[in-house]
């Protein structure tokens, strides 16, 4: 039943997305709300989120294939498949954001090696090939273990490189005081791991094997890991906010105030802190809650929503502060504003990508033979 509901939701989301994809591909960027000042919007935030989810899922897969943790034996392939379906969602999201997406080949043939963005394009290309190869190797019954382990080491390093790289992509901009902190590239791999763990928690809660006696323990351990990673994230958040506010650098303080009390307050307080951090921490530490897989799975989804909002809360407020006083009113025109809320078209594309990734994951579970070796249960049964 749950799977049917998810199939239905995924299909509806994908249908909604078709409008956005059509609009972007055949009409252009006129219907987006990001612009020349808030120059990166929802699609960039979702790129950070999906790409982080993919690298985090790969990290989770290493529990099985590299570190050989007995409790997670047999779960790696689901994590790898999750990495496989979420990475394209991230790359399509960032592709939609390009003014000339047909020129993406130039990043391969005429790259600027010192550009973080070029490094990320190359990094994600290699990473996607590593995921694909990993999936293929683990699906083969007779693949020697050292080969899989070797590849997992490469993939693990790549996962840290690409997730840290997107932190650096923002962090190198000295023009945005709130991004320009050395810890940003260090924080992002941890955020990615947190989303990977939360996704695995959801997957095992919703679709864990019926016959596997370890399932409840797996859910319990992943719940605790999610809570720990949320605490680490909250600590980083506290460090960032307190340092910025204490230093008193105007652009920094303005960006933080924008996030806490400005146009994005609801995203920060309700989505990121309330639904994405405090509520999951309460639910996941409740004794015996791990025996309620449906609620644990939903809590995992809330954690993911919180991290999605967190990515947006890193991107938008920093850009919503004018670089120079008076810039906001000096010249007016379309896309020349410091206020930003994603347009329907932007939401449409994002919802469509969520739907497409969900459908792809479910179809894999149902039709890829190597994912179907264990019988899946449904929490409602």
């Amino acid at each position, binding site marked *: 039943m749950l799977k049917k509901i998810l199939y239905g939701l995924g299909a509806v989301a994908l249908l909604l997305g078709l409008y956005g994809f059509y609009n972007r591909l055949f009409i252009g*960027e*006129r219907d987006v709300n990001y612009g020349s000042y808030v120059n990166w919007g929802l699609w960039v935030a979702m790129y950070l989120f999906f790409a982080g989810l993919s690298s985090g899922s790969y990290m989770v897969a290493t529990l099985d294939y590299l570190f050989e943790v007995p409790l997670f034996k047999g779960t790696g392939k689901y994590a790898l498949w999750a990495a496989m379906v979420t990475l394209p969602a991230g790359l399509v999201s960032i592709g939609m954001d390009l003014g000339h997406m047909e020129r993406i080949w130039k990043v391969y043939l005429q790259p600027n090696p010192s550009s973080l963005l070029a490094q990320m394009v190359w990094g994600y290309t290699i990473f996607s090939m590593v995921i694909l190869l990993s999936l293929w190797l683990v699906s083969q019954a007779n693949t020697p273990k050292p080969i899989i382990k070797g590849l997992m080491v490469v993939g693990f390093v790549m996962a840290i490189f690409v997730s840290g790289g997107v932190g650096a992509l923002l962090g190198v901009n000295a023009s945005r005081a709130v991004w320009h902190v050395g810890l940003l590239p260090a924080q992002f791999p941890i955020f990615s791991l947190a989303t990977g763990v939360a996704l695995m928690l959801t997957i095992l809660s919703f679709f864990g094997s019926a016959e596997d006696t370890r399932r409840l323990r797996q859910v319990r351990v992943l719940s605790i890991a999610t809570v720990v990673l949320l605490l680490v994230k909250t600590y980083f958040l506290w460090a960032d906010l307190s340092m910025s506010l204490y230093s008193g650098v105007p652009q920094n303080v303005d960006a933080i105030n924008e996030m806490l009390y400005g146009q994005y307050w609801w995203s920060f307080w309700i989505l990121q802190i309330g639904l994405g951090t405090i509520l999951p921490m309460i639910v996941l530490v409740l004794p015996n809650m791990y025996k309620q897989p449906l609620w644990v799975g939903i809590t995992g989804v809330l954690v993911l929503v919180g991290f999605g909002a967190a990515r947006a809360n890193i991107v938008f407020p920093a850009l919503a502060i004018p670089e120079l006083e008076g810039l906001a009113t000096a*010249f007016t025109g379309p896309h020349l504003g410091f206020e930003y809320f994603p347009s329907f078209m932007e939401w449409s594309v994002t919802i469509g990508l969520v739907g497409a990734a969900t459908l792809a994951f479910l179809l894999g579970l149902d039709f890829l033979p190597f994912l179907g070796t264990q019988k899946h249960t449904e929490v409602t049964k």
Partner: protein
Amino acid sequence: MTDSGEVRDVTRRNFLRGLAGAAGAAMAIAALEDLAANPDQALASYEAQIALAAKQAGLSTTTGQLDILERMHQELARAIVKPASDRRWVMVIDLRKCVGCHACTIACVAENKLPPGVVYRPVLEEETGDFPNVKRQFIPRPCMQCDNPPCVPVCPVEATYKNEDGVVVVDYEQCIGCRACLAACPYGARTSDFGYTYIEDTIPKSEGLIVGREAADDYERAANYEYGKAWSREDEGKSPRGNARKCHFCLHRIKVGELPACVTTCIGRATMFGDAKDSDSLVSEMIAQPNVMRLKEEMGTEPRVYYLV
């Protein structure tokens, strides 16, 4: 007609002045041709001729000195015959002279045929103090053409770079439109071309009610000549639509001995432009003043736009 004599007199004066201007322009073109063939000899002759033309056209000041616009023209003529590495284009903006008329902004829009949402040189307005001690300050903000530009290293395809003149340029056909350079610029000096046109997107659609609409539409879609190349807006998907765009000190004008559009249209002569490696140039004099400053100098971007305060 008792006034006819006076009218005739004025008309005659204007006619003669116009004639002098036309002669001056013709001489200037001829001089530019000479410059290319024999720079050293032609230069002295060119300066003399242009000074004469300016005098005839009434551009000399009451003190007998040339208007600074003419002086800058002469200096520009000297500079463009030098190798690019021997000159350093800088802009100096005297904030005490800026009256906030926005003529430079509009001239820039017209010169580069900028579409809605794209601006190279907005004029920022800042009001400080409390009544009655209130000050209103106008700060024109072109691209700073930084010597250490943060926008350049972030470009994934080297579409933006400092050219041989030290001006930060955008290769429209190389740019993928990622807007990383927009995020990196500490001055907000880059805007993205989202593909709008004034006629189609800012005027209410009411066919036949606006006189000259079709002609204006044609004009707007006709090519501009940024970077010395024709960039038409006929095709929806073609550059510069979808690109990052920015001020380039009107390189296409400089190349033919004309000052940037914002300089020539500044009614208060607040904007000055020239070669800072020419020690006799106006801009060299200006940036040696004690009251000179640059925006966000602490960021180490080394802007080439100086402000006199």
